[in-house]
């Protein structure tokens, strides 16, 4: 049975120095507005929980601002740092290869969609690791089709293990 291991919401996101989504409220709901023309990324930080086991996935929950057709493409990357790792955190990033997935957007703008992306590349995450998650919209379609018009509003990401 799958277990929820982390819940990432817009209020706790942090951002790179460029190409990041805007923090917005949509009908009083916090959201991150991911652009349709440029890949944008947001980060979240957590500790990998005890009892972490099996395959993980990330379920991206989003709505479209305008699109009523086409597909949206999302990517999730994991950076897991274990005690003793030779990684200079104030100078280096070390995300694993992106895990990506896409879906046809709902036929009505504002309707919710939840896309589960298997974290095949999870940087060997283990319980107790200091972890960063990077979530981006693959707006330029590098990994697959993203042709839905306008912003995608990310409402949250749920990480599960044992899937």
């Amino acid at each position, binding site marked *: 049975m799958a277990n929820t291991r982390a819940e990432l919401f817009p209020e706790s996101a942090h951002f790179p120095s460029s190409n990041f989504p805007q923090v917005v409220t949509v009908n009083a709901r916090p959201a991150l507005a991911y*652009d349709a023309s440029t890949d944008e990324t947001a980060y979240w930080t957590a500790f990998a929980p005890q009892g972490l086991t099996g395959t993980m996935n990330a379920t991206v929950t989003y709505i479209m*601002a305008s699109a009523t057709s*086409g597909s949206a493409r999302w990517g999730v990357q994991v950076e897991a740092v274990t005690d003793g790792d030779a990684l200079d955190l104030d100078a280096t990033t070390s995300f694993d290869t992106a895990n990506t997935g896409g879906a046809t957007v709902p036929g009505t703008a504002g309707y919710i969609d939840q896309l589960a992306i298997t974290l095949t590349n999870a940087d060997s995450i283990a319980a107790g690791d200091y972890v960063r998650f990077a979530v981006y919209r693959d707006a330029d379609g590098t990994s697959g089709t993203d042709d839905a018009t306008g912003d995608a509003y990310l409402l949250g990401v749920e990480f599960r293990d044992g899937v």
Partner: protein
Amino acid sequence: MAILSDADRRDLWAQYMRDISDLREPCAINKTDLRAALDAMDQWVSDNQASFNAAIPLPARTALTSSQKARGLMLVISKRFVKGV
């Protein structure tokens, strides 16, 4: 007048999508088709610049700069068609 550069057309396309997103305005076509439509509009402007200019009476036709004429056209279109502007 030459058509816009690819970079300018891309900027225009990105701005269009940001604008409709801010308005929460539904859009029934995908990004690719939208880009094609905007490119065609730019081409139409280029193809019809002479007739647009000829439609402007004197003395405005010769006294206004190209930018001033374009601003006028933009305001006319906005007033006629675009809500929220």
